[in-house]
């Protein structure tokens, strides 16, 4: 749906709002570009001058530490000026509308907005209203999309598995409330993953989730069986209210990833988690820290992927 909004007329990435509808070549281009940036972080001087003189505004209408920090590091490694705005505690609380906030910040010569918002579609709305030279990068909107997280997960999978065409991937946990899961599902289908499973109790799955091209499993034992990749989702504490789940204990017993359940997957399976983890709720500590876990490399790759996205959307305005 947003493909046209996200791409320039000649097919380059202008905004990154969602992975849905993006062509595979763009996703691959992002992953390839990220690969060239991974080494930047290993240098003594961790900077390249690609975004020198550009002003990147981190607009976080919802609290975040990890994502905001990695976007900030990524922008700084590209030599951009970074302005962090924690709007959850400022302008909109004074009654300013979202579009007014954006218009005001645009007037401060912004070149890029990195947006996190509690409502699905907020970055799309901003992208429709910004001046042509400004790019919008979605850092997570409602339950809709978290495209850079989805991309860094694809980077991680490609890094360890070499590709997507023969993979069986299980996404386990609260898919209903997860923007991460939605972005992963879109990315995996675009990149040609033949079998995407979602594993969760019915209360944590969207009613028509199968329309996204996934296989539904309610039991962990069948869900992770013979999988190459297991992605565990974070279970938020507030989900224990509202009759979605009876208790964290019961959740862990049936859907938590333990050593035993992991044995059902392929011997060379990797275990991923977008963080922050709840040890003992969705994942056992032994698994999180074990030899199958690639959870910390995910974070490292996240910086390179965000550098790639930021340099590409800025390049499209050149």
């Amino acid at each position: 749906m947003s493909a046209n909004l996200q791409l320039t007329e000649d097919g380059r990435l202008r905004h990154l709002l969602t992975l849905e509808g993006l062509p595979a070549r763009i996703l691959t281009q992002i992953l390839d570009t990220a690969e060239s940036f991974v080494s930047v972080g290993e240098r003594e001087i961790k900077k390249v001058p690609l975004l020198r003189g550009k002003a990147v505004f981190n607009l976080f209408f919802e609290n975040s530490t990890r994502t905001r920090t990695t976007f900030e590091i990524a922008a700084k490694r590209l030599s951009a000026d970074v302005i962090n705005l924690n709007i959850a505690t400022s302008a909109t609380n004074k009654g300013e509308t979202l579009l007014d906030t954006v218009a005001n910040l645009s007037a401060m010569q912004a070149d890029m907005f990195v947006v996190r918002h509690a409502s699905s579609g907020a970055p799309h709305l901003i992208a429709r209203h910004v001046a042509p030279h400004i790019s919008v990068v979605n850092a997570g909107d409602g339950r809709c999309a978290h495209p850079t997280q989805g991309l860094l997960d694809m980077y991680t999978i490609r890094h360890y598995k070499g590709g997507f065409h023969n993979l069986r991937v299980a996404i386990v946990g609260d898919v209903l409330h997860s923007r991460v899961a939605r972005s992963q599902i879109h990315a995996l289908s675009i990149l040609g993953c033949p079998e995407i499973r979602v594993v969760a109790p019915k209360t944590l799955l969207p009613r028509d989730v199968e329309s996204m091209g996934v296989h539904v499993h309610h039991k962990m034992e069948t869900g992770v069986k013979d999988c190459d990749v297991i992605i565990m989702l974070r279970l938020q504490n507030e989900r224990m209210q509202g009759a979605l789940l009876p208790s964290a204990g019961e959740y862990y017993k049936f859907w938590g990833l333990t050593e035993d359940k992991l044995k059902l997957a392929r011997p060379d399976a990797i275990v991923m988690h977008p963080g922050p983890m709840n040890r003992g709720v969705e994942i056992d500590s032994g698994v999180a820290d074990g030899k199958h876990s690639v959870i910390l490399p995910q974070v490292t790759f996240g910086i390179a992927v965000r550098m790639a996205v930021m340099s590409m959307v800025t390049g499209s305005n050149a």
Partner: protein
Amino acid sequence: MKIKISNGRVIDPASGLDAVRDIYIAAGRIVALGAAPADFHANAEVDASGLVVAPGLVDLSVRLREPGLEYMATLESEMHAAAVGGITSLACPPDTDPPLDEPGLVEMLKFRAKNSPGPRVYPIGALTWKLKGERLTEMAELSEAGCVAFSQADDPIVDTMVLLRAMEYAYTFGYPLWLRPQDFHLARSGVVHDGVVSARYGLPAIPVPAETVALQTILLLVRETKARVHLCRLSSRAGVEMVRKAKADGLPVTCDVGVHHVHLSELDTADFNANCHLVPPLRSQRDRDALRAALLDGTIDCICSDHAPVDADAKEKPFQESEAGATGVELLLPLTLKWGAEAGLSLAESLDRVTRKPADILGVDGGRIGAGKPADLCLFDPDAPWTVSTKSLASLGKNSPFLGMELQGRVRYTVIDGHLDYRAG
């Protein structure tokens, strides 16, 4: 004021008349069709050659946004927009600020409407105080002040005992209740249908059982109390089937659908277009097809605009934060004609759903053309194309899912109570 409307193609769905006739109007009534009455000297003559002369449209849900919501639209602006849309009678729901829960508020609204050009206004009284769903309003007093029915608009009655008492009390006086079936708990803070779009975009969802569970409760209580209930804005296939069965069982229920729901589905919300944020939510294409079929077989009696003008600021927000609703009075006629044409109906059959049938539900002497009937008429060119735009809409609410689209059927004249209320420029 005496008016002669000549050479028009007169269509009266009630009698089946569809022929070129002259119409003679005096003192607010149609005095003759065809030949002029003796001594008739028209003060004005309208040449309706090439136009359809239909009964004025009767719209069962038009928000005039007064009192209290004038930042969205005003009574004058929306009365005028309704006349532009060929509407000559309208019912306004009680969801104003404050709600229509006191006789004084209703009298003021009637007074304001009477002193403004435009359609006849029939207020729907609040069923409970402040629409809170707790204490019944003074229905008899409100009825004397001019309310023709009682409703919660889109506010819930959470306590089912209150709903039972409301039906019993309304039955005592013979007042109809207009209820939109939606279970409060199942709807929660949802904004779209629980379907493919909510799965894909993670928008908070309203499942179909939000409608059917509430509908089942209402139908069981109607069976119990024999209260007359008009069901507002059906949205689902399962809901339609329940109403079909209830009618077959002889329950005293009638039913309407919003005109947007006849044409759109959840897929139209897929680009976060806040103009497609409607109440109830647009559901699946199967649901929409069931609504259309139910309209055809009479399970759904009529179409209303569910007019909800919203200011631009309230729509330029992320979908789930945007104000729900669409402007509708000017789209009711063209979208009804579009449905009728697609369903293979005659003009008379299509118009029946926006004239005679809603007039009967409202219990007013309108929606018909005949000697002695009120001179409420809509003269339109059925083939005239026009593009829906912020400029072409007279309503202050520019919030239409159809912005930028071309529709057919444009009103040229609207006659209300024997006066030429609107003439296209």
